[in-house]
């Protein structure tokens, strides 16, 4: 149950709306609050999710979802409550840790949208070579990401309960993997990644967390 002093977006109190086996934490929000979203609203959302984490790991909702009233919320949740209850079971006692790694080499060029991407005066043959070069760069990056992914997976090994690799566009040059880690294994997890980068001095990793399990909130097959 939310603490009576807990407030949500715009400062309204957070209250509980039970729907079958699950309970939604909600707060009333004026129509215009979300019209111009800003970082403080996002922080307020995450603060409520973190407050929930203090008692039990929740399934965090994506930011910005509104319902006309509690009845509309119940209607939207009713058909999904059994699946959400299974989701809660899956994340029980765990938090999300996210690791990002930089891929090496030039970014794979973006998919051509218009002929404007091709330098003027390019012949048909040059164009085909250019296309092939782009495909090869993208393929090399995919292979590198897969290779790095496998090594990160080996480094964290049995410490993680599940993993989710984000499908970042090839042009971003980062590999992002989120791990579902038992709360009592977070320090060991950080230690394992620290030891990993010591063995791989060319690597730099960004590790963030603990988060609520944002990347594990939807069923794996969704």
């Amino acid at each position, binding site marked *: 149950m939310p603490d009576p002093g807990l407030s949500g977006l715009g400062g309204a109190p957070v209250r509980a709306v039970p729907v079958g086996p699950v309970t939604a934490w909600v707060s009333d929000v004026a129509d215009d609050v979300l019209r111009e979203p800003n970082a403080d609203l996002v922080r307020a959302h995450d603060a409520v999710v973190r407050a929930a984490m203090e008692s039990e790991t929740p399934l965090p909702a*994506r930011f*910005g979802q509104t319902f006309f009233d509690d009845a509309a919320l119940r209607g939207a949740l009713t058909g999904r409550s059994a699946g959400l209850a299974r989701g809660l079971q899956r994340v029980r006692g765990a938090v999300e840790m996210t690791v990002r790694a*930089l891929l090496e080499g030039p970014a794979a060029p973006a998919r051509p949208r218009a002929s404007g991407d091709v330098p003027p005066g390019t012949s048909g043959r040059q164009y085909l070579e250019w296309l092939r070069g782009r495909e090869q760069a993208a393929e090399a990056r995919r292979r590198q990401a897969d290779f790095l992914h496998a090594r990160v997976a080996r480094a964290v090994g049995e410490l993680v309960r599940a993993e989710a690799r984000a499908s*970042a566009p090839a*042009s971003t040059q980062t590999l992002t993997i989120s791990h579902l880690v038992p709360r009592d294994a977070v320090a060991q997890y*950080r230690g394992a990644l620290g030891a990993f980068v010591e063995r791989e001095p060319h690597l730099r990793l960004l*590790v963030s967390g603990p988060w609520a399990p*944002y990347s594990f909130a939807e069923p794996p097959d969704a």
Partner: protein
Amino acid sequence: MTTGELERDERLILSELLNHVLDKGVVVSGEITISVADIDLLHAGVSLVLSSTETLDEARRRRVSAGARASDDDHVSVLPRDT
């Protein structure tokens, strides 16, 4: 550490937050107000930080000494840490 670096680290922390809160999580409503078109840009920002040689440690020490919440501590770290 300069103000610019401190701001960059704050941006990085914010970028991690936005990547989680805006792009992930349970969706039960068809009405999501927020567009996540900027998420790709956030990823690109992380790339820039990872390719630089600086770390977040100094920014974190500053925040802690300035009385920031303890939960901010260690929330985002770049490995390996420079000593």
